[in-house]
């Protein structure tokens, strides 16, 4: 449980520390005006970004706990390490490219190069879809070579971790789809830009999660 504990403690310390800091020298019983920013969250972020940050904290907790289970279960005698399909490297490349294209699209949206929104979104979506399909093919390959989900706990965890990660990407694809549909039906460019910005952050985050998962799967 150490992994989960450390990750959660880090997140909790960040939040609770900020709360403590903003409460430490206050004298709440004194009435009067306060500075304008006093009712704001830190960093002056928009609500959707704060919501997304909170959601990424939840997902971090989720994967940290799954990895805790992974490391606890690994110590039991029946664990036979799994050799991951080489295809995963190509999939990782797809996800890295998707992240990069999202960043490029986001930069274009911020600096007003709106004609790049549509190709950017399409390309990012295609690359992400390629990643997901690649993961499914990797499952197929494993199955074909007799590495079923039940054969061994290492296999079970491989399917579980990749599956959960894929589901989170799929969730992101809904936001991507809505942004893309709006981009092609001539929606408000600014609003689409904001969606692209949120997607970019989420994709970077899931890329990071994937790199951690992939690194762990390779090394064990």
């Amino acid at each position, binding site marked *: 449980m150490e992994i989960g504990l450390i990750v959660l403690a880090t997140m909790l310390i960040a939040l609770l520390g900020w709360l403590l800091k903003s409460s430490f020298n206050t004298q*709440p019983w004194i009435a009067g005006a306060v500075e304008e920013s006093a009712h704001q969250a830190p960093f002056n972020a928009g609500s959707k970004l704060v919501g997304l940050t909170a959601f990424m904290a939840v997902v971090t907790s989720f994967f940290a*706990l799954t990895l805790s*289970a992974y490391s606890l279960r690994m110590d039991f005698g029946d664990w036979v390490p799994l050799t991951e399909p080489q295809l995963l490297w190509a999939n990782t490349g797809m996800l890295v490219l998707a992240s990069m294209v999202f960043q490029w699209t986001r930069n274009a949206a911020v600096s007003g190069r709106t004609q790049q929104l549509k190709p950017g979104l399409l390309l990012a979506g295609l690359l992400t879809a390629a990643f997901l399909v690649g993961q499914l093919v990797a499952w197929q390959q494993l199955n074909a070579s007799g590495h079923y989900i039940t054969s061994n706990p290492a296999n079970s965890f491989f399917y579980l971790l990749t599956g959960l990660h894929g589901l989170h990407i799929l969730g992101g694809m809904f936001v991507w789809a809505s942004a893309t549909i709006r981009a092609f039906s001539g929606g408000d460019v600014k609003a689409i830009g904001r969606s692209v910005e949120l997607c970019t952050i989420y994709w970077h985050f899931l890329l990071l999660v994937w790199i951690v998962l992939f690194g762990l799967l390779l090394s064990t």
Partner: protein
Amino acid sequence: MGYVAIADRDHEIEHHDPQTFITKYIWSQDHKVIAIQYGITAIFVGLIALGLSAMMRLQLGFPDSFSFITPENYYQFITMHGMIMVIYLLTALFLGGFGNYLIPLMCGSRDMVFPYLNMVSYWVYLLSVIILLASFFVTGGPTGAGWTLYPPQSIMPGTPGVDMGIILMLVSLAVFIVAFTMGGLNYVTTVLQARCRGMTLMRLPLSVWGIFIATVLGLLAFPALLVSAIMMLLDKTLATSFFMPAISSMGVDSGHTGGSPILFQHLFWFFGHPEVYIVALPAFGIVSDLLSTHARKNIFGYRMMVWAIIAIGGLSFVVWAHHMYVSGMNPYFGFFFATTTLIIAVPTALKVYNWVLTLWQGNIHLRVPMLFAIGFIFTFLHGGLTGLFLGNVTLDLPLSDTYFVVAHFHMVMGVSPVLVVFGAIYHWWPKITGKMYNEKLGKWHFWTTFLGTYAIYLPMHYLGFQGLPRRYFAMGNTDFMPASAQDLNAAITISALFVAAAQILFFINIIWSLKKGPKADPNPWDATTLEWQTPDTPPKHGNWGDELPVVHRWAYDYSVPGYKDDFIPQNVPAEVAPAGRDHGVEEH
């Protein structure tokens, strides 16, 4: 820069007022309607769970008298009672119900920041409840694995509901967690982003603090339950071996290899202990506000109360294994968790002292919400003190499987939060409905519930000390239990049925109030917090009419010397009502 987020926020929640009955009350995005939907659904399943506990008590008090209660049924009742009460009633009611209603009103915002997500959250919650209740109607019935669902027995043949029951339970939990996450993201973001001008974090009422930190705990802890539910579902349906060890049942090899049931316990309690505080922290916060309002005195040590909530929230993640002392853990491990468990008593005790000191020299009005709040101090103190026993490994080992534990956790997280739920409903009822309830009926409700629950749970401590084992369908003839223990069990059952029946008073009161109750004053308790300062009662869509309130002071300016009224609402400017400072220094 400070205005960017405000503009942003107003844009986000700008939507047309709902017109038809369906958009207004069914597919509503208004946080107040969603809160009521959450509340009604949670209380409805809570009543089912109450009925189940009555059945269990009938069996325990009068064994062999009821042919329709089989051992299998009994375990199914236990499981569903526990799970419904902890998750589908208390978590949903405190966060989905009170969180939804109070956060925007107390923070001075028009709605949650993501109203659509909020609406979806309720409907997904309802879906989880329907899935859960569906398990009563499938072959084999609901799972009888106990609310902790420990493997291997929860998915082994021989446990009731091992076919569809356990699957529906796990799916329902997963769906619930999705619903909670959608709601929780809303509550956290709204508290952080949508406070009105002048509402600093340290001017928030403690109710919001409690709900906010509880939501943070929920968001970080529920994933542990989700992971374990998914893994157990795979163990059950695909025969993986995350938790299931190599085992043979009735001579048949189960096909599992080398999994770890203890791993499940770790994951479950990594969620399960914060869950206790997910229920307790909102109760703490709400009680603080009830006591302060009805004692006409500022809460004693506001900052300490906030820090205690934060500290409890942080500590609640490092005590989980005190539920697992009997799992055969390393003694050093047990020592560590006993220490952290006892440390958490420090901020908790601090809160109890502060509540009592808030009452000291207060102008106490023993109205119905106040009675429930003071009742909570008693029951929580009793439950907390027995927690000190069970937090120690050496005492927990002999007591763990006895009725002492049943008495402990029902006092601390059954009766105590439920008293707060009732207190809070009575307190905010005039605002929610615009009608007053019947004071006399409310007092009858309080005294029957309060004294009745003591009649149930106090004797259970003695049964536990005598070694009466919990989880048993029937005690049979044992040498170590005197015959009088059975008499006591019968008495407990009678008290339990009495308390269950007494809840009818509450529903009579509600119906009477809705039909014939006198119109409520907008601020019947002379309270300072923002929800009582709305232009309409009940507040309309958007809460504040044309202009958002501006906050000038904390939520606890009661009996400020030199001011004509004994309360100053949070939105009264400092120039209109000076003072506060001398008073505050004296208090701190």
